[in-house]
């Protein structure tokens, strides 16, 4: 049985790499897309040795919107599944004072990912099949003082994915929104994360594979996060604005 290719956008991220391993283990050819893609040669070899699948590297810059169409054209095969693991956490306190930095966070988490998934969605729509997975964030569920620049961009991305899913629902194309919560990755290595709420990248990857297979729409990786966010969203704004969370 030959499995369809899986394209990973933001392949250098820990979650992106974990997703690559999960699908490679199932026999899918893997397309790794990232900036400075040639640096991923070691990861490519590792995937090929471990899983006996073909792996290709593709130069991709999410904020360079003009390059997106060309990027899609140069893929060796049209992917069956696309996982967008692109993300930039930024530094909230710094970014509040630095417009360029703030805009980069917004473009990296919303504009770029939305544009590339939109471009791929148009092709999937014509083909009438495919799955698009967007890794958004629980930070997009409600803006908080400590990370609202990142959070607002993720909120935009979540809304975009929701709309795209709605548009594609009758076209044979499925869209999955993943809200991982805390994940133990390079992005969060400076943060002191609570163990029970923190997932490993491999858990996120397994959750994504399951969600794609079962055609889930919105998935939290750890179920506890659905409860946490339900509570956080239920707090009245008058109280919420005084809280430090």
């Amino acid at each position, binding site marked *: 049985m030959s499995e369809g290719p899986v394209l990973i956008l933001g392949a250098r991220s820990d979650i992106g790499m974990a997703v690559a391993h999960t699908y490679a283990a199932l026999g899918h050819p893997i397309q790794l897309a990232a900036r400075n893609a040639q640096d991923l040669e*070691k*990861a490519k*070899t*590792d995937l090929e*040795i*471990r*899983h*006996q699948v073909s792996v290709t590297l593709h130069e991709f810059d999410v904020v360079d919107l003009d390059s997106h169409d060309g990027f899609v054209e140069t893929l060796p095969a049209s992917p069956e599944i696309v996982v967008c693991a692109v993300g930039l956490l930024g530094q909230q306190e710094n970014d509040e004072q630095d417009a360029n930095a703030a805009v980069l966070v917004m473009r990296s988490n919303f504009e770029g990912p939305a544009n590339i998934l939109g471009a791929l969605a148009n092709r999937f729509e014509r083909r009438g099949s495919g799955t698009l997975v967007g890794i958004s964030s629980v930070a997009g569920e409600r803006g908080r003082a400590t990370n609202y620049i990142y959070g607002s961009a993720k909120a935009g991305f979540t809304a975009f994915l929701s709309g795209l899913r709605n548009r594609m629902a009758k076209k044979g194309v499925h869209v999955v929104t993943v809200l991982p919560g805390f994940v133990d990755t*390079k992005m969060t*290595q400076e943060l002191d994360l609570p163990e029970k709420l923190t997932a490993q990248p491999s858990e996120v990857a397994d959750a994504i594979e399951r969600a794609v297979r079962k055609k889930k729409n919105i998935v939290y990786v750890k179920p506890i996060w659905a409860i946490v966010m339900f509570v956080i969203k239920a707090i009245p704004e008058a109280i919420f604005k005084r809280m430090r969370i």
Partner: protein
Amino acid sequence: MKLSGWGNHPVEDCNVQKPRDKAALKDAVIASSAIARGNGRAYGDSALSRTNTIDMRSFNHMLGFDPETGQLIAEAGVLLSDVISAFLPQGWFPAVTPGTRFVTLGGMVAADVHGKNHHIDGSFGSFVDWLDVVGTDGEVTRCSRTENSELFEWTIGGMGLTGVIIRVACRLRPVETGWIRQTTHAAPNLDAAIDLFEEALDATYSVAWIDCLSKGENMGRSLVMLGEHASHSEIPEKCRATPYPTVAKQKLNVPFNLPGFCLNRYSVRAFNALYYWNGSRSDRTSYVNWNSYFYPLDSIQNWNRIYGRKGLAQFQCVIPLDQARTGLNDMLTEISEAGQGSFLAVLKRFGVQESRFSFPMEGYTLALDFPVSEKSIALVSKLGQMTADYAGRVYLAKDSCLAAQDLKDMDEVRVANFSAMRERTGVNKQFSSMQSERLML
């Protein structure tokens, strides 16, 4: 953070760094006196440093494989379990494997691990072609039997004390299936067990479970288990559908430390009697899959927690061949009189091994574990002294309480040479573990 070896004893507050690339590793190494840590399967304090423990698990890429020679090149943080997952379906198996597959290749080199085939194939080091080692300056040196051979020889079995192993080239063995043909032989006492081992020197794998609580004429009663890689044509019909069986995800787990009283001389004695009776009903041949043959405990996550919160003290020694019967007899007498139930007690014949600082030597090795208590620590110390009396050795990957003097008594020349090498090359200033400090290496 609080850190310990697999024995959960001792537990220490350690400063841990987890570098992700070569540059970060260099910074980590030169920061202060350091020890590399793999997957934390050494039992005691071999991979603990209060000031600078370097977690190597981000170095987990496989870099190349040559199907002509079976040579795998991989970063040191790659787990043996991943090697098996990747290569068994292609007909390759580790040439030497310890009793758990959740070890890193770097850890396997550092402890120069042995398996049930030591009497024929020697230790893991025999299958290592070359190593890349990060030295005191943070730079990488490649070493092999012909290139920087001193570094190579000291690093195998050097417990991470010659530098940080970053890449390993080692050979796998071709296998026709993932099944093992196992035969079990009952030995009513120690002498009979040793006789069985001596008769079975041609068997690829041999190991014995030994009952350490039985006394008198039953002392040292054992089940000697021999194994061979099964060929495709010999495996039973039902195994042929899966010549390379895979492991299901771990289901059994010990979610928390059991109360310390669960393992005592009565429960262990009852278990031992039942296990021996079951194994001795007849000499049997069966086909078992590689996972339950080599890694029976791996199927229970966190099995170390059955020893309770205080943890377990492991002890493993080897007694030279000519002293083995007398030495083991004395040790078993000591153990059964102390009444300290060792739940897992293993006896194994070692073959000849020439190496600088590795544990194995020709003779018999005895491995035991005890729940940590004042009495069991005293027993382990006593067994350490007895090992010295019989000119044997203790396995540092399992040790957490040997005294520096006892190590010296066992192995005066080798220990002195090791320390002298550390001094001469300056690695003693840059690489040390709590164990090396305790043992004054």
